[in-house]
């Protein structure tokens, strides 16, 4: 299985909490939450490397992950169909 086909739209995934310091782009409020792959964005350089001048390294898959607001916030004040989508790099995801 090649890295860029690791997840497909509709796959259920859990966003990991890697506890990694530095320039990470996975916000705290989604860590540990489960959603589905909405869209495969392509391969991008890892910002966790780029931020420290390591430019031109390997590219990694980036996905748009969709979560329901009710899963994100148990006391969410809105409709059942409300969702949030954000971009998560492959190494922050595991199959759910």
């Amino acid at each position, binding site marked *: 299985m090649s890295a860029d086909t690791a997840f497909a739209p509709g796959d259920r995934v859990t966003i990991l909490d890697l506890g990694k310091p530095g320039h990470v782009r*996975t916000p705290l409020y989604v860590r540990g939450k489960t959603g589905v792959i909405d869209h495969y964005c392509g391969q991008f350089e890892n910002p966790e490397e780029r931020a420290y001048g390591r430019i031109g390294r390997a590219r990694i898959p980036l996905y748009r992950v969709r979560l329901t607001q009710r899963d994100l916030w148990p006391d969410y004040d809105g409709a059942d*169909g409300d969702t949030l989508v954000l971009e998560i790099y492959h190494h922050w995801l595991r199959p759910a």
Partner: protein
Amino acid sequence: MSTTDDPAHHHHHDHAHAPHPVREDDDVALTPGEAKFLALKGMLIEKGVLSADDIRRRHEINARGSPHQGARMVAKAWIDPAFKARMLKDAKAAAIELGIEVTEAELMALENTPERHNLVVCTLCSCYPRSLLGEPPAWYVSKAYRSRAVREPRKVLREFGVTFPDAVDVRVHDSNADLRYVVLPMRPAGTERMSETELAALVSRDCLVGAALPGVPEQTRPLR
């Protein structure tokens, strides 16, 4: 500062007087953030990582960005279904088609429909398609908007004067990594006879991140 040959001054880093002033007037002390910015900028130039000209040119590109460019794209999509399809497939290519220079890596258009409203936020910093839309409004980069838009989007939208029934899904997009987003609003009713230019005038900056809806022409707005 004198142009002394005193070796003690030879390597002095006079960062507080960079060629581009950060403020109009220099009569108050720099904030710590401004001082850090000028020091970093000075070092990057001195080490040859960037030139002052690189920085100026980037400012120029961002200064060309304007909500009017986004509004042009929206109006074109409203009157030209083929263009709309291309915009939804690859918004960056669609912008370039209109002669708009987009420097961001990827641009995605988010289509509002009768069933879904899209709202864009960057919770981690201030990501925004600057080369298309220019600098973001102050509220977009405020901590209040960045934290509340993902937590209570309907309440935030109500404060902007936009309300939806529960049958409309509100979808929040956190612009947290490599993509940048522009919202394609729905064309208001009663605009069937309007020209592309007239349509573009209905699309405000805030519509393009989903915080507002396109203006309704005065003649069709119900009297109160």
